[in-house]
């Protein structure tokens, strides 16, 4: 089993629904995005176009972040999801330096969105236990939702169906078909990281 995602950039409209859904589910701190949409302009007027590319942790098969972690806090699970055990992470940030996708965030503070009020909102309080200052965090491909038989929040929220979640190791799955059919590529594959997030462009 190897969970992954195919992202069809030609369908992405840059609405950031995935980024918002991720923040809503995981209650990440201000400024922290486990996934977001990069945008840039291509061509010149009158043939200019906006391009969008959703980016997140690539859940690499040969994850450099897991290889460099000195205390084994980052592991590649049997289902292919790369997770960080926040109870073990010592905050050395070696994994942040090793990740070629800048997908990891070192959490300096668990302060909420309204620090001037001195309190956290009810929503922030319910998600507080998921985060610990001084540790590194990243996309966990909503492994708790997957365990319940649901798909990750970002792919569920995508209005254009640009994100397809599934098991890359199952040849009968939609995602495996898409990878084969469109020769979906991973980001910086030449590094040998074996990303589980593939792009159709």
């Amino acid at each position, binding site marked *: 089993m190897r969970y992954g995602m195919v992202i069809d950039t030609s369908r992405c409209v840059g609405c950031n629904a995935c980024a918002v859904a991720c923040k809503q589910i995981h209650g990440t701190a201000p400024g922290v995005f486990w996934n977001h949409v*990069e945008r840039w302009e291509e061509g010149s007027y009158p043939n200019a176009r906006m391009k969008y590319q959703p*980016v997140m942790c690539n859940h690499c098969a040969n994850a*450099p*972040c897991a*290889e*460099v*972690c*000195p*205390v*084994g806090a980052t592991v590649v699970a049997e289902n292919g999801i790369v997770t960080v055990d926040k109870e*073990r*992470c*010592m*905050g*050395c*940030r*070696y994994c*942040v*330096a*090793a*990740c*070629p*996708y*800048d997908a990891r965030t*070192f*959490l*300096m*503070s668990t302060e909420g969105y309204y620090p001037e009020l001195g309190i956290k909102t009810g929503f922030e309080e319910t998600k507080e236990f998921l985060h*610990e*200052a*001084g*540790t*590194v965090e990243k996309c966990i491909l909503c492994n708790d939702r997957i365990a319940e038989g649901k798909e990750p929040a970002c792919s569920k929220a995508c209005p254009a169906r640009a994100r397809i979640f599934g098991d890359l190791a199952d040849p009968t799955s939609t995602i495996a078909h898409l990878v084969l059919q469109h020769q979906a590529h991973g980001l910086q594959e030449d*590094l*040998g*990281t074996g990303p589980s997030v593939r792009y159709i462009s």
Partner: protein
Amino acid sequence: MTTQQEKATAHTAQATHTKAPLDAVTQAKRPRFTRAQLLAGIIALLCLIVGIPSWVIQMTTVQFGEGLVTWGLNIDLFFLSAGIGSSLLAVTGLSLFGVLPGVYAQRKFLSIISFACLFVASWIVFVDAGTPLRVFSIIFSPQFNSLFVWDFYFIALAALISLIILFKREPKRALGCLGIVFGLAVTITEGCVLAVSVGTPHWSLNIGIPILFVLEGMIAALALILLISRVPQEEKRLVNALLALLAAALVVNAVDVLVGAYLGSGIEATTIAVMVVGGLAPLFWGQILLGLLVPLILLAIRRTRVSISCAAVLAIVGVFLGKLMTLLSGQAVLADGTLSTYMPSLLELGACVGYVGFVLLIVLVGMQIVAHRAAQNESVLVSEELA
């Protein structure tokens, strides 16, 4: 009076008899602070007054520099401190083979500095970690596929070897061999810690980094020996060695820049542009001109005590700038092509001042312990002669 009581009384009488001259000798030989040591002590104290609160705040509130930088000034000081400590150990180890008699005579002093630098390097890791208490996991549940773990253990072993050289009366060559091996292992591993980081093209594409780390460590170690030790009989050899190392570091830096510039485009080329003409240019040129070229010229043209001291100070400053430049240049360009910025916070600066004070304090305490032990040994010898 029983036989046992008689024996005890005789023993007490003998002890009282020998204690008087022993006390007098110990009193006479008790180490005192020199003026330079007092000054260093005051500086250490002032640095620690700034440093300790900074460490406490940094460890309890997880605050680092400002900007999109993973590793900044703290890790720069870590690399510098570990580099100096391990390279000093390698040079001291070499002296045990009889090639540097002047350095051999100073081995205890150099071992104290080596131990202090290595100990403080470990302390920096502790302060810089987001959750400091979990650093002990490196001891209890290490993952040996991480070079960070190897680095940690090599530093610990190097510090241990420094201590053994310090307290052994006649350290053997085998110990010198271990000193050289583990001294070099620390700097090579630290270079490789960066070189295996595939997420940072400027580090992973640059095979010169481990070589540069060895060169920089040796430059700083030799410069420190020339600056603070009196080794007149070996000064010429050490200066020649420093000259060669500075030239080699200059070549490695030039190759790094030329190869990066040759690529023309991509993250590596952008990084080189940031280094040479962008935001990191002051650091880069500061290192090349002040830290490498000027000392090189000073040592090549005139070798007076003043010029050697100036060159040594500049070389150490150059190593500090060079390591900071290596760290920041690797993180200068993000995966999406945007440029990152970095400015050390006051807290980080305070913590770094504290590290300098901590090294000074350990060196001073170490010198007192060694002097005290020497005085004790001497007094025992005198009392044996008196007896």
